[in-house]
């Protein structure tokens, strides 16, 4: 049964999603929407597993003082600090602090920023005060004795710890650093790949060279120089390499990409079919 239950769930869920794709039915739309919601909910709970694995590996590394165990301490400390500040101040750019009228006046006197006063509306129903929006308050058919208004005092403050320090101060620069490495890695990969070792490699080298010339300003300069040397062609030299580059990208490159995409899409359909009808169950991992 350990294997049969996931197979049954896969089959039924896929069936509902495919029927929703082709049949106009409110019931099927609701079911398909719910399935997508359940996926998000399960993924959120599954994060606990990931965190458990993370802590297990790094705590073990610290306990046994394995190589570079100090970095495991930094990881766990960083996690704890981020969770601490996120719990206190939230993860948005700003957070709201509720104040009493007295606190509001004191802070206003001190010249603090971000102070907000909002009108709030209440309906008194069965001796209970219910907060409602202004539209509901005005439209409500209750008597004047059952309605009440008030004021809410707040201060909107910048989340300088989580958003300012951790996110913008540490995370954003680290992410930009990793992304910027791509430029250097691309140059290194191109240096290795663009060698005339075979016919295909030579074609790659020549087309890469032409496309690069067509994309940089120096290509226009080189084109003008060549046009000066070959005047009988009668074409504007500064556009040569750009036109060649555009042709390479829009005709052979696009054709190749589309062919790969068509093949990949067919492969996806076949793989999905095999998983749907349980011809392929390796990912279930159980016998």
């Amino acid at each position, binding site marked *: 049964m350990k294997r049969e239950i996931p197979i049954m769930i896969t089959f039924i869920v896929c069936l509902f999603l495919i029927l929703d794709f*082709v*049949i106009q039915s409110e019931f099927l739309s609701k079911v398909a929407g719910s399935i997508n919601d359940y996926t998000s909910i399960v*993924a959120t709970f599954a994060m606990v597993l990931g965190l458990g*694995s*993370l802590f297990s590996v790094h705590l073990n590394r610290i306990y046994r003082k394995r190589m570079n165990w100090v970095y495991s301490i930094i990881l766990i400390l960083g996690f704890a600090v981020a969770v601490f500040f996120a719990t206190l101040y939230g993860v948005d750019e700003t957070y709201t602090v509720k104040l009493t009228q007295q606190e509001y006046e004191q802070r206003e006197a001190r010249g603090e920023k971000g102070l907000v006063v909002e009108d709030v509306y209440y309906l008194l129903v069965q001796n209970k005060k219910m907060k409602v929006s202004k539209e509901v308050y005005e439209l409500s058919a209750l008597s004047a004795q059952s309605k009440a208004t008030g004021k809410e005092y707040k201060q909107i403050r910048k989340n300088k710890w989580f958003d300012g320090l951790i996110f913008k101060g540490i995370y954003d620069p680290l992410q930009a650093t990793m*992304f910027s490495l791509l430029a250097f890695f691309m140059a290194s990969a191109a240096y290795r790949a663009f060698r005339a070792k075979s016919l295909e490699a030579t074609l790659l080298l020549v087309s890469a060279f032409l496309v690069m010339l067509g994309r940089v300003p120096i290509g226009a300069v080189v084109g003008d120089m060549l046009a000066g040397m070959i005047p009988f062609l009668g074409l504007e030299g500064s556009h040569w390499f750009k036109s060649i580059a555009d042709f390479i990208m829009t005709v052979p490159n696009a054709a190749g990409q589309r062919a790969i995409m068509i093949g*990949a899409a067919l492969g996806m359909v*076949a793989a999905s079919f095999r*998983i749907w009808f349980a*011809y392929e169950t390796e990912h279930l991992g159980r016998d």
Partner: protein
Amino acid sequence: MLRNPLPTLASRAFVVLLLTQSSVQAAGLGDVLKMSELPTFLALTMLCACIYFFIQKGKSGDKLYIRRIPALSSVDEAVGRATEMGRSVVYIPGIMDIDDIQTLAGLNILGSVARRTSVYDAELKVPCAKSMVLSTAQDVVKEAYLRTGHPDTYNESNINYITDDQFAFAAGVNGMIVREKPAAVVMLGTFYAESLLIAETGNHIGAIQIAGTAESSQLPFFVAACDYVLIGEELFAASAYLSQDPLLLGSLKGQDVGKMLIIFAILYGCLSEFLIQFLGFPAALSITSLFA
């Protein structure tokens, strides 16, 4: 992949597709069915029918040929190299979650790779970017080790979660590769900008690299930095190739019929447009009006 072209079957499928759509419209089922999605649904049904037909042929014992895929033939070489050098194999099943078909394809191949590493007694490390992929990968690898009779060599902490964040995951994996210097790095699944970061790091330490993804924008980076690359549909054919299961090989054959169908449609579309534009044939011949 296709040894014996099947133009007859594909052309028949094309005609059936046209007739079915016409009959659905004639029967007045436009209120029940989403007519805009009907051509896609019918094409999918046709493709699935072809796949099912050839799966049954595979089941009945017909020998089905599949061409050699160098990247998959080199998996044994990669694992053997890791064993000789006394180093590990790092397997990365992509950065997307379990609902992505490429991740599932990657996990299916992980089972085959895990069986080989357990037989050769090489260490297998699987860094994961998503928690559900982590638990599935642990199950797959454990089952593989059990099946080959080496449950004692299975180490659960070798399959671990790094982080959900794309570049933080790349940084974590790069750190693992630079510190542990694996002999082989296998990247099969969905990859985006981090593909080149990981592939170049593996190349830098001299590991044999096998990569595969259906993301066409990342394939050039893998081709430049890796030793072997599975391009697009080869990733989804890998599980059939490695297992040589007749049922799975049959599905590949069915997929090839689908490809023939698409080739026919493209050729028909090109020819019809040429005839309409340059020879004045009626516009009703256009492929878009046939499926409108």
